[in-house]
């Protein structure tokens, strides 16, 4: 019996003709993908392009409407993530799949813990955890720590460690680095490269172009649920790739920053004096002027988020004082912070739990922060509400099938726009942003940058935390670099460079970088 003629090598994994519809939305249409061992394969596309859907199908989370998948040339169907993982396809999901109330060790061996006499062997489990954490470059995480007590960026590493425990052949990371800061990313990259050298196939989704350039061997671009192109990395320029993604010409540009004269001429709208909180914030003093975009830099978890929360009245027991327009204010709750005289808004970190009520309609979400303004004696003035909403939907170009569908049905980017829009409806004077572009495509990001600048020009004072250094450089008039709960350095104007940001974030003493505060 002669074997039929085969191509040189069967690819590790192949899918073709895969479609998935959600109601009227074609999340995927006739998509295909080929994955080879020992390669890092990047999947690119705008928000809502279908990337997550594609890999959810691969990983057995979602059943495709049609299409087929081959592993080692054999047709496969995965009815659950466990089946996929057992077959060697393991995914680190965009929505975290860790169990908050279980320990890190429990999570890492969650699906197939080591057992003795049928019961979970916690000692063996702990050994595995330590090993996997080490492989994921996170040996500083204690295996008994509860996942819910870890900061987001650490959880992401646990997530990777957990995936590694499956001993996968294909490891998928859906925006696995979106919550990580540069240092963590570097760590993850070295892990990924090592895994590649061990012969794993890696599928990698990220909205950060430079990461892809740095890491990928192969790229596949999706747009509107269809394949646009698949090509070896480095054969196309960033510009070309982005154009493939958005289907139009693209110029990566941050809006121009206005010329600033002397700092003193900017009237401070927001001022903190020696703000402190628990062990996390120490003596934070800063000002944000009218029309100014002030960035918060540094490694993740250095107190930036807490500063924003403290300003917004979420934290108890803060010390020091906050002044708005030169007057001391008490910020005891978000309700107080957003009230008339203060006019503060916070675009929170996690839109799913802090920004939106996913099952409620787009309309209800949009007007939620502004209910007090569109109502009289508690009764909502529906016309007024409608007017404001229409205005915002247009201003932010929110893509939605209607105002009365659940906001959870929108793509990530559009959900984020809703979060921003709901606060802009108040025309806030002080805007606090907590990493607002996480998981958002380049096109939307750009819109958000433009918007920030316009808001600043209209007189808002903006405090902007981002884990993406490029954004800080491109958007901010000044950047305050955090380290260990205090401000270590203030960079401004041309002094805001990647080098300066990284150096001061790591608290290495290059005094010549930027200008000290």
């Amino acid at each position, binding site marked *: 019996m002669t074997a039929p003629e085969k191509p040189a090598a069967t690819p590790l994994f192949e899918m073709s003709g895969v479609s998935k519809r*959600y109601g009227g939305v074609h999340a995927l249409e006739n998509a295909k993908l080929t994955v080879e061992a020992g390669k890092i394969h990047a999947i690119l596309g705008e928000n809502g392009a279908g990337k997550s859907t594609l890999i959810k199908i691969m990983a057995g989370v979602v059943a495709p409407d049609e299409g087929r998948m081959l592993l080692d040339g054999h047709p496969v169907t995965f009815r659950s993530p466990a089946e996929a993982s057992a077959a060697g396809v393991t995914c680190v999901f965009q929505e975290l799949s860790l169990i908050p109330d279980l320990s890190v060790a429990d999570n890492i061996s969650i699906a197939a813990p080591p057992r003795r006499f049928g019961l979970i062997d916690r000692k063996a489990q702990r050994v595995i955890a330590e090993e996997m954490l080490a492989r994921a470059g996170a040996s500083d995480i204690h295996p008994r720590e509860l996942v819910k007590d870890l900061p987001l960026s650490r959880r992401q590493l646990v997530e990777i460690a957990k995936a590694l425990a499956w001993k996968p052949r294909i490891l998928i990371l859906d925006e696995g680095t979106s919550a990580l800061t540069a240092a963590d990313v570097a760590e993850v990259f070295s892990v990924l490269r090592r895994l590649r050298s061990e012969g794993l196939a890696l599928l990698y989704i990220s909205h950060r172009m430079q990461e892809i350039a740095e890491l990928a061997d192969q790229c596949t671009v999706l747009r509107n649920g269809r394949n646009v192109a698949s090509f070896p990395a480095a054969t196309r320029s960033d510009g070309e790739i982005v154009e493939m993604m958005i289907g139009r010409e693209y110029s990566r540009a941050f809006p121009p920053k206005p010329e600033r004269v002397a700092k003193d001429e900017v009237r401070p709208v927001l001022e903190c004096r020696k703000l402190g909180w628990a062990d996390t914030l120490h003596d934070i003093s800063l000002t944000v002027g009218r029309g100014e975009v002030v960035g918060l830099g540094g490694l993740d978890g250095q107190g930036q988020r807490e500063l924003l929360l403290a300003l917004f009245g979420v934290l108890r027991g803060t010390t020091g004082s906050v002044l708005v327009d030169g007057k001391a204010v008490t910020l005891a*709750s978000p*309700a107080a912070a957003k009230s008339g005289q203060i006019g503060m808004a916070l675009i929170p970190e996690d839109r799913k739990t802090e920004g939106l*009520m*996913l099952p409620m309609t787009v309309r209800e979400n949009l007007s*939620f922060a502004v209910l007090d303004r569109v109502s009289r004696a508690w009764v*909502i003035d529906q016309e007024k509400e409608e007017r404001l909403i229409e205005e915002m939907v247009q201003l932010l170009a929110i893509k939605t099938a209607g105002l009365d569908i659940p906001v959870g049905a929108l793509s990530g980017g559009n959900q984020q726009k809703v979060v921003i829009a709901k606060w802009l409806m108040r025309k806030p004077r002080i805007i606090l942003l907590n990493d607002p572009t996480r998981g958002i495509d380049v096109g939307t990001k750009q819109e958000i940058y433009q918007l920030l600048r316009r808001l600043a020009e209209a007189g808002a004072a903006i405090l902007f935390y981002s884990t993406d250094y490029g954004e800080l450089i491109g958007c901010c008039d000044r950047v305050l670099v955090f380290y260990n709960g205090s401000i270590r350095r203030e960079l401004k104007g041309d002094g805001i460079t990647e080098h300066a940001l990284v150096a001061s974030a790591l608290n290495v003493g290059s005094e010549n970088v930027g200008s000290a505060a």
Partner: protein
Amino acid sequence: MTLLSKFMHRLDPAIVTAFACIFLLLIIGSFYSASFLSPEYLLQQLKVASFLGVIATGMMIVVLLGQIDLSVPWSVAVGGMMACAAAAYGPLGEALAMPFGIACGMAIGLANGIGVAYLRIPSMIITLATNAVAQGLMVVYTGGFSPQDSATVAMRYLATGFLLPGLPNAVLIWAVVGAATVFVLNRTTFGRSVYGIGNRESAAYLSGINTRRIVMIAFIASGALSAFGGALLAGYASKAAQSMGDSYLLPSIAAVVLGGTSILGGKGSYLGTVAGVILITLLQSILSVMQMPEAGRQIIYGVVIIAMLLLYGRSPANRQ
């Protein structure tokens, strides 16, 4: 036709099914006795349903928040007993009987609200505790003071009189309470906040909603409505008694949920609760009149609730 279809489109399938079940129940009942379709019987059912309706309204608001109110039994009793108690104090007491009863219910609600909103004690447990305290207070009250427990003329009138010919006042009151609730839930910031909190409390809080106040108000409203229901019930029975609230807890929860409100909060409409209340009342009444022995009654009651929920109350499947 298009108007109708538009209306139908907007209707929750849960509510449509619930009303269909009511209809079916009546049809089945009419095989036993044609009287089940008589206007007197139906009006009598509506009247009796009103008490549950008023009480379930409060339960629904709390359930929309993702909470539950287990203090209903003794809030009802306190409402009835305290309204009657006030009546002992001359004409002023008589005039203030109903408001006083309601105020006492609000006090229980306030305790619940503080516990849930400010102390963050799970509602299932704090309301259980306040229920026990309310019971304790009523036992002390009944034994220690000369209990005046006859309903006032006004209470009787509200529960059993006819302001509009043919329509019992109790039904009218339920309609008013219902209309007010629909308005509050759909057209006010309070209502919007209730749904918001029910869906995602942290997001509501970060939107600058005073979530604690809303939760507290919701529990106060629930206490008030339970007590109001109790006072009406006292009017219906001409007097108040300790055990008068016992049979309202589980039915009020069942009615709310049968009406399509999610027990997890955030989703539900008042029309559904109306359907649920009528359904439960009718079911209990028909089984009672058919002289079903208690055992069979319990079994049928349980089976019917499950069957109906299986028809329309299922959560979405996990996997798309």
